């Protein structure tokens, strides 16, 4: 899990991804030109609040966002193919053996009327052409791998026999059943309580070391990110606003939004501890149908002031690097300059 230079062989590289979803009120600009990549054995965390486009930006790669109403542009290079341009039948072959997914809510992502065994063997039947016996054997191995006791008996269990944490382990086993190159965890721990969260996080980390997968972890939980990610991309209103090695991001967040997010984390045992001590970012995320002109964050930004904030979208510009991982940020604000906005000069590279 050594932090790899992102220029080294990304297994999945997303370039200028844009997703529009037609709504009755007009097109919703859900993802607006997002680029990221992830390499083998590397963990990329995509962070953002609800509606920031983090899930859609990954689901759309696999054709899991229905088109129409969505239109997806950009490229996503995986295994020498552009996923965005692939027809449905070819995408079906990528889903599973190429990119496996774990979803947010283990209570609803398993089919209630099918046994765990039948759901586990599905991918192997579709992609690997295993017969029933062989698929069952592999299913037992997978359940064992994800730490489920008595795996053979569990094959006959229905989802309602299992607790939330167990179900999420089953979901992970399903995602792993076809040996994916990339594992996408879409809020995979959000619906679980904290101790189970920690176990699932640890489990995926162990599996990643064991199997050498690339992991894309979509979450709004910065606490989870700190423990697992190599690199972090912070999304806001469908754009990446800051991208850095995880330590660099926590040590010196550059974007006012990232700073706001980090400041809003409750600190255990902090002085006072009253609810009012929790910092909040005033306002709400913008409506994707009516994005503000200029920087999407500027209406809520505590340090806005540059003349360009209101009418130009700040580009992602490098502000340094840690262990070969560039630190990039999309803001006109320069924290190294003094607080006087008049002194901020052209910050773009």
């Amino acid at each position: 899990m050594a932090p790899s230079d992102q220029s080294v062989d990304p297994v999945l590289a997303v370039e200028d991804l844009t997703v529009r979803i037609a709504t009755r009120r007009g097109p919703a600009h859900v993802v607006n030109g997002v680029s990221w990549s992830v390499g083998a054995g590397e963990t990329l965390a995509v962070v953002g609040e609800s509606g920031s486009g983090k899930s859609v930006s990954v689901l759309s790669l696999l054709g899991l966002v229905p088109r129409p109403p969505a239109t997806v542009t950009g490229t996503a290079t995986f295994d020498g193919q552009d996923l965005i341009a692939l027809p449905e039948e070819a995408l079906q072959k990528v889903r599973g053996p190429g990119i496996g997914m774990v979803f947010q809510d283990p209570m609803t992502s398993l089919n209630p009327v099918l046994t765990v065994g039948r759901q586990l063997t599905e991918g192997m039947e579709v992609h690997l052409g295993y017969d029933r016996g062989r698929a069952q054997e592999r299913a037992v191995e997978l359940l064992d791998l994800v730490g489920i006791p008595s795996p053979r008996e569990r094959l006959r269990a229905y989802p309602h026999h299992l607790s939330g944490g167990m179900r999420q382990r089953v979901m992970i086993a399903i995602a792993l059943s076809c040996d994916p190159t990339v594992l996408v965890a879409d809020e995979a721990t959000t619906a679980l309580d904290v101790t189970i969260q920690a176990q699932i996080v640890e489990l995926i980390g162990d599996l990643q070391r064991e199997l050498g997968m690339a992991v894309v972890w979509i979450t709004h939980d910065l606490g989870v990110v700190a423990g697992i990610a190599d690199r972090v991309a912070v999304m806001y209103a469908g754009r990446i606003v800051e991208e850095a090695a995880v330590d660099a991001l926590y040590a010196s967040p550059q974007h006012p939004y990232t700073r706001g997010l980090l400041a809003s984390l409750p600190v255990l045992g902090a002085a006072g501890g009253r609810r009012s001590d929790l910092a909040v970012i005033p306002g709400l995320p913008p409506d994707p149908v009516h994005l503000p002109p200029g920087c999407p964050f500027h209406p809520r930004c505590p340090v806005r002031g540059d003349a360009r904030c209101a009418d130009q979208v700040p580009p992602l510009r490098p502000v340094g690097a840690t262990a070969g991982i560039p630190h990039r940020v999309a803001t006109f604000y320069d924290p190294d300059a003094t607080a006087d906005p008049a002194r901020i000069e052209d910050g773009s590279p």
Partner: protein
Amino acid sequence: MTSTADETAGMGSAPVEAGTVAAPDDTAGLRGLLRVVVRNRLAAVAVVVLALFVVVAVLGERLAPYGRNEVSSEDKLQAPSLDHLFGTDQLGRDVFSRVLIGAEPSLRVGLVAVSIALVGGVVFGLVAGFYRGWIDDLIMRVMDVLFAFPAILLAIAILAIRGRGSTNAMIAIGIVYTPIFARVTRASVLSVREEVFVRAARSIGAGDLRIMARHVLPNVAAPVIVQTSVSLAFAILSEAALSFIGLGTQPPEPSWGRMLADGRGFIQDAWWIAVFPGLAIFAVVFSFNVLGDALRDALDPRQRSAIESASAGQ
């Protein structure tokens, strides 16, 4: 659930609890469903009545004390007696025997007709609800047109085109009931297709056909099963109605609807000719309706868990 204990024990040291894992589910599968249904007394009676009629339909002729068209001119219009339990009709035929023998065509027409409606309606509803768009519009508008006709009128029209007889009656009743199944199925599919597990199945590479057959269909089964039970009642009633007006089962074959029609003229003097086949129709239709209601309750997840926990306490 024991698995909660597993969770807190941590992944590495999780204890093996072979005995408590995947305990047999007493409500899983068809047998479990039947068990839940018969906890309702009335439904249990209905199941027994229907089973009885099925036995009669299968054995029919062998159970009947007299032949289906055995005429005895001395015994015309006899009131029910030990010799003739349900009396005799105007030709001296034994009404009891004919009611027994009439069970077979009635049930067969009902069963085949509902099977046609079930298969057609479920396929149309599944495709329409799953794909939406123009295919949904096309299928459902055709279904609406069929649905707009009064059922019996549409069946009569189909029989007028294809000719009378029990085979055509089955087809006609089947077509008439197809839109109901299509609607019931589509309505459920619309909600199931949005479920996360459908997306999860897609994310592992399952295609449309697999998702429809394996993930969506089992999840829409409950309302369809209920509809099947209720439709069997109506289909048998429709068969009786069509036979009554002479378009269904043809004389001299015994059929409950036909016997009602024949007995109608003698109702003042020989009530038994019409009343006993009428009672048979009533018993079967009522039983299917009761069974349908019980199935509805049993398959409703909220009610079902209530039933489960109630029975767990026993």
